[in-house]
């Protein structure tokens, strides 16, 4: 029977990547001086597991590579080798190589043989080994037509669970014919016999079968130290006429490594998820409740007459249905949630490497790794986060010399944190560096024509300019930060996830980038608004307040722009019907309402004809059958089956600004 091992490959890859992460953080720990034996053992075990698994599943290149790593780690855990910075660096490098190898195998792409060879040489150099393939032991393939085996086990052979009958049976299966003679000379009197001891010995004649001496030793390999073994070849061939048996199965040599190293299935993002069993139990409970409610409601289907009493019960049942459905929905969403640690865990290594590259001293503080968010969002937030952290490292934190001069400590601090707020997850990247250079940003923006020459903007808006497409103040496009991937792409990627990003900065003290992401991509709390004959949806989370217009608070600014004075702020009024080309019920602001919303640190007041209800709304993509429309984040289907469009506040603000830019006016933000 042959078993297809491929079904275990995915599990192997997953656990290997986890193992590599464990190795990496363990090695980083070693470097910090955490030379704890348990730590080294953990690193060793991970390497050992990967080696074992890769060998078993036929990934011999991986097994070979990992073998030397394992040897090195073994020496370290035995105390034979000191933990030194260069050894840890080499091992860190080999973790990377291993990661790439596993990824390549999993995707079916080519392994980077050069980097593998390079690192192998480095490891072997440390081990003091010549870079040669270890010689294969020559086995003595002396075969004979027959053998005589004298087998005398020691008394406690059975105490290791070994069974003499089994051994003799195995010998028997090697040969065409076997004669067994038992020797009971050492057997004591019955009353003195210890049933757990072995007193007997045997002489076994094996005839035929093309057995080699090694084959016989093989049978006894486990009990080498527990017996006396004498093997003689039969001098004269016994006159044995029998069929030539060539049983290949008896000869078990090195395992065949026929499995191909490459796999044809692709999986860049893993399509499986690990779920805490308590979440699954919760779901089962919810579904149970739902079933009960459903069967209760189904009885109404048989109802002939509806009395006020039955209608009351029906209403109760429907209310229960709503609450159970909501609970089930929340439970299911939680299944898709994973802690953000999965996205954060690459940063210690990244910061470590980059600080070396940039010759800066950086301390990374990570908090809130347990904060959970949707798996898909988690997978996609990684790259934007990396870009922002790199940016802080490259442009934010000053060189150690500059920092000392500025009266700061040599080591810069980058804080990466995550927490829940409202229906969102908030991720912050804070550095105690030099902060954003307002003047430089403004002049660059003017230079690039993003902003008019006589522009006067409050600081927050200047900082926000770094997110505009076509903007980059890096004088030299550094390999790390400026690879054609700008802040505008970061913002776009985050918006695509339904989130937003903004920056706050204090010159000389540092900057904070704040990312807000919805906890789920699929569902939204929506405020229905009426504009003309049409219904649109505003995300409740962006709404600050709604109000009736008092005309004395409306101010016109340089032509077509209007602002509303709300307490001590002036908020731009956005006539949505104009931007969307809809015929409103009234163009007189006093007849409708203003809904004040906020996104990415900017506020606007949207003029609507009517406020309709609030409800949970399932977000459907416009792009599936159509395309992305600016200002809209998607669509949904209302209870009556009609489609309502969901407004993307940040996108709407962009649209409004573009609209206004053509009338050469800028938005004034919070400043009065």
């Amino acid at each position: 029977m042959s078993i297809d091992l491929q079904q275990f490959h995915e599990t192997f890859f997953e656990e290997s990547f986890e193992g590599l992460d464990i190795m990496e953080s363990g090695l980083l720990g070693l470097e910090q001086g955490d030379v704890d034996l348990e730590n080294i053992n953990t690193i060793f075990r991970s390497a050992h597991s990967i080696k074992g698994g890769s060998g078993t599943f036929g990934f011999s290149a991986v097994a070979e590579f990992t073998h030397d790593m394992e040897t090195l780690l073994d020496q370290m855990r035995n105390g034979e080798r000191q933990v030194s910075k260069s050894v840890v660096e080499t091992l860190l490098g080999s973790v990377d190589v291993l990661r790439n190898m596993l990824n390549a195998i999993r995707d079916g792409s080519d392994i980077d043989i050069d980097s593998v060879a390079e690192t192998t040489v480095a490891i072997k150099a440390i081990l003091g080994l010549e870079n040669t393939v270890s010689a294969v032991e020559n086995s003595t393939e002396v075969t004979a037509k027959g053998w005589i085996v004298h087998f005398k086990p020691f008394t406690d052979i059975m105490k290791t669970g070994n069974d003499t009958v089994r051994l003799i049976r195995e010998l028997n299966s090697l040969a065409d014919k076997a004669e067994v003679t038992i020797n009971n000379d050492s057997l004591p009197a019955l009353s003195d016999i210890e049933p757990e001891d072995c007193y007997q010995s045997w002489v076994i004649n094996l005839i035929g079968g093309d057995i080699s001496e090694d084959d016989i030793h093989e049978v006894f390999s486990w009990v080498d130290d527990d017996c006396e073994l004498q093997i003689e070849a039969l001098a004269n061939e016994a006159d044995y006429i029998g069929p030539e048996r060539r049983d290949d199965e008896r000869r078990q040599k090195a395992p065949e490594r026929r499995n191909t190293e490459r796999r044809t299935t692709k999986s860049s993002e893993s399509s499986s998820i690990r779920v805490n069993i308590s979440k699954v139990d919760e779901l089962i409970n919810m579904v149970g409740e739902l079933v009960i409610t459903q069967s209760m409601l189904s009885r109404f289907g048989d109802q002939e007459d509806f009395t006020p009493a039955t209608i009351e019960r029906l209403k109760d049942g429907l209310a229960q249905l709503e609450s159970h459905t909501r609970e089930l929905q929340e439970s299911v969403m939680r299944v898709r949630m994973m802690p953000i640690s999965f996205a954060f865990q690459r940063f210690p290594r990244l910061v470590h490497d980059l600080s070396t590259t940039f010759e800066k001293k950086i301390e990374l503080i990570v908090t809130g790794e347990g904060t959970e968010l949707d798996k898909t969002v988690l997978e996609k937030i990684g790259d934007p986060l990396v870009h922002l952290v790199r940016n802080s490292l490259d442009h934010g934190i000053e060189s150690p010399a500059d920092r000392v001069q500025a009266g700061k400590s040599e080591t810069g601090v980058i804080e990466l944190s995550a927490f829940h707020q409202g229906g969102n997850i908030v991720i912050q990247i804070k550095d105690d560096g030099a902060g954003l250079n307002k003047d430089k940003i403004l002049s660059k923006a003017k230079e690039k024509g993003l902003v008019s020459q006589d522009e006067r903007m409050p600081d927050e808006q200047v900082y926000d300019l770094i997110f505009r497409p076509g903007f980059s103040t890096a004088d030299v496009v550094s390999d790390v930060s400026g690879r054609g991937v700008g802040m505008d792409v970061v913002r776009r990627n985050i918006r695509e996830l339904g989130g937003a990003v903004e920056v706050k900065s204090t010159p000389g003290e540092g900057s904070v980038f704040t990312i807000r992401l919805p906890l789920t991509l699929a569902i939204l709390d929506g405020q229905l608004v009426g504009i003309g004959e049409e219904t649109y949806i505003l995300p409740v989370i962006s709404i600050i307040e709604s109000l009736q217009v008092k005309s004395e608070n409306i101010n016109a600014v340089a032509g077509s722009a209007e602002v509303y004075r709300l307490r001590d702020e002036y908020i731009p009024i956005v006539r949505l019907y104009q931007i969307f080309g809809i015929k409103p019920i009234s163009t007189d602001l006093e007849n409708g309402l203003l809904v004040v919303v906020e996104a990415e640190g900017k506020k606007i007041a949207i003029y609507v004809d009517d406020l309709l209800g609030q409800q949970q709304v399932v977000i459907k993509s416009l792009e599936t059958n159509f395309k992305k429309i600016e200002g809209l984040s998607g669509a949904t289907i209302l209870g009556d089956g009609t489609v309502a469009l969901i407004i993307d506040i940040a996108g709407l603000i962009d649209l409004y600004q573009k609209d206004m830019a053509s009338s050469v006016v800028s938005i004034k933000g919070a400043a009065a």
Partner: protein
Amino acid sequence: MSETAEELDAQETEKEFKELLTFFLAGEEYGVDILRVQEIKGWDSVTNIPNTPEYIRGVINIRGAIVPIIDMRLRFMLEKKEYDATTVVIILNVVSKGNADRVMGVVVDAVSDVYNVPINDVKASPDFGTAVDTEFVTGLATIDEKMIIVLDIDHMLNAAELAVVDKMTE
């Protein structure tokens, strides 16, 4: 459907016949591959999408999917006509290269019939100013002495403003 529109197409081209659903639009009769027709609906209200060309009437809900509806008269700048009892929306499966199949609807004056046309009978269209751009016309067929203009749905509904931005060029 277990097979994509493309696969069905491939199977079809092996046969000698093409089955067409035909419809009327401003006095002309057009035909589309029946295998691409998902369903036919009467005209009902749509949700308008802002800042889109007039011929994109809006979107509707078809069993949970958001489907855009295109007015063919407006698309090809034909005379506008009031929708009446015969006005029909044909829901089509559209194939776009490198992307998943999409579902879109087109508003036409009325549905005509279903014909089995021998492939060889679909002749190349001379450039004689049909309302519809000849680049969207696969060819002309003659059925019962009528001329049917056979349309290339994929091309027509992927073109210009309707096209999903190709991932490469983004």
